[in-house]
């Protein structure tokens, strides 16, 4: 086993670049198709299904989907993720392995006029964790555990929640119930959160960084946080990989992002990693 993740091909220069999704629907047939597509492609690594920012309606927590999707309850998201797990299992060759992450974000700047905001972000996070646990149970009971595991993911962007309150509460809630990893696949733009807050999002409890690296400067921001962690927490964070958003013009390709992040980590002995385990491209 390399690092702590499922083993990747140690002879390959880069880990497999998985496709992650911004979701507009919780249609089970659509999510099955996405899972089957990933399986057919032999996808290996972390796959984030981003169902949008947290929301609450009629007594139910969930998210506001992207595009035309509207509100999605946690129950419908779980059904969609089960369908993705089914599709990946059915269509994948033996021996591929995927971490299927239930994704959300901390979106909703004060000026955005967001509707259906959660009444309690800690509760929203707690239920997010519970449903993540339930996906693992489904995977285990379905006989998929040799190739699939369940996780969560949070596109946490400092500029979206400068006060940090809802971001903190959601993650605290998640960690109060969840038994599985949460990937922080957000950014670290400066001027919003303290280093301590950034570290909390990236590495508290079951959280691990899988950051957006679209530009070399973004990798440098994460290395700064790594150095802060060494100085203030005694050890650097284990960087699981990077997230790209290719092919937006002017941004780094997944492999360029990987190189940029690894170059930064290897620029100091205290943060040195010889490889990253995951590469994912979200579109």
């Amino acid at each position, binding site marked *: 086993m390399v690092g702590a993740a499922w083993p990747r091909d140690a002879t390959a220069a880069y880990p497999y670049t998985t496709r992650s999704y911004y979701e507009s629907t919780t249609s089970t047939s659509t999510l099955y*198709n996405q899972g089957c597509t990933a399986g057919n492609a032999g996808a290996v690594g972390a796959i984030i299904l981003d169902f949008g920012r947290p929301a609450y309606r009629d007594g139910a927590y969930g998210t506001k989907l992207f595009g035309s999707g509207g509100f999605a309850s946690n129950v419908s998201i779980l059904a969609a993720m089960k369908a993705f797990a089914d599709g990946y299992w059915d269509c994948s060759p033996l021996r591929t392995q995927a971490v299927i992450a239930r994704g959300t974000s901390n979106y909703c700047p004060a000026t955005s006029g967001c509707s259906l905001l959660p009444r309690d972000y800690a509760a929203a996070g707690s239920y997010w964790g519970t449903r993540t646990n339930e996906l693992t149970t489904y995977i285990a009971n379905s006989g998929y555990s040799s190739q699939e595991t369940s996780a969560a993911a949070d596109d946490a962007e400092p500029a979206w929640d400068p006060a940090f309150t809802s971001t903190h509460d959601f993650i605290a809630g998640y960690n109060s119930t969840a038994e599985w990893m949460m990937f922080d696949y957000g950014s670290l733009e400066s001027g919003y959160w303290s280093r301590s807050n950034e570290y909390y999002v990236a590495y508290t409890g079951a959280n691990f960084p899988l950051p957006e690296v*679209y530009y070399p400067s973004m990798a440098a921001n994460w290395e700064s946080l790594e150095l802060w962690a060494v100085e203030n927490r005694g050890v650097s964070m284990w960087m699981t990989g990077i997230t790209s958003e290719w092919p937006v013009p002017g941004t780094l390709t997944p492999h360029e992002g990987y190189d940029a992040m690894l170059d930064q980590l290897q620029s100091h002995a205290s943060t040195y990693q010889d490889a990253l385990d995951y590469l994912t491209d979200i579109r």
Partner: protein
Amino acid sequence: MKSLRVRAPAVALLVVIAFCLEAGAIAAPSRRPPVNPAKRAILDHQFALPPGAAPPAPKNPAYVPPYDPPRPQIELAHVTSTDVQVPLSPALFAPTTQWIDVVDGVQIAVYGGSAAHEGGAAAIYVWLTDLNAGSNLAGTGLFVAKGPGPLRLTGVSGQVVSFSCPNRTGRFDLLSREFHWDPT
């Protein structure tokens, strides 16, 4: 005899390892930062086979799931400036407005705003999605205008997107993906 039985496989294993190292099939020991016991426990738990997990299920790649049609839940085909959640990082694009329609299972989402990485230039993000396959379609992309943003959508008619920018108005053609500015 007992020690020989143990030793023979061990020698064979060493030979295999030596061969694999020679062939480059086994990487050098990984160098990672130390992980504290609590984090290590999470990782070990994450990647261990859950107790009581069912044996591997048969695979059925020919399975076709029951059709569950994607259902748009927002008011379609109108410009709005509230609750705009764009499927693109804020490091790349800051939205102001959106217009979304669904035609024959294809979602056409148009977002107006500014390109954060282009000095805040006016920009439009077009997101075309096959809602049944759950995949993006050709034509999806971020299109940056030669002019200051932010850009705000004002309407969509056919393939033509109308917009306004600080001190200017114009149109964007969804097929040619070209910006046309109105005379000032």
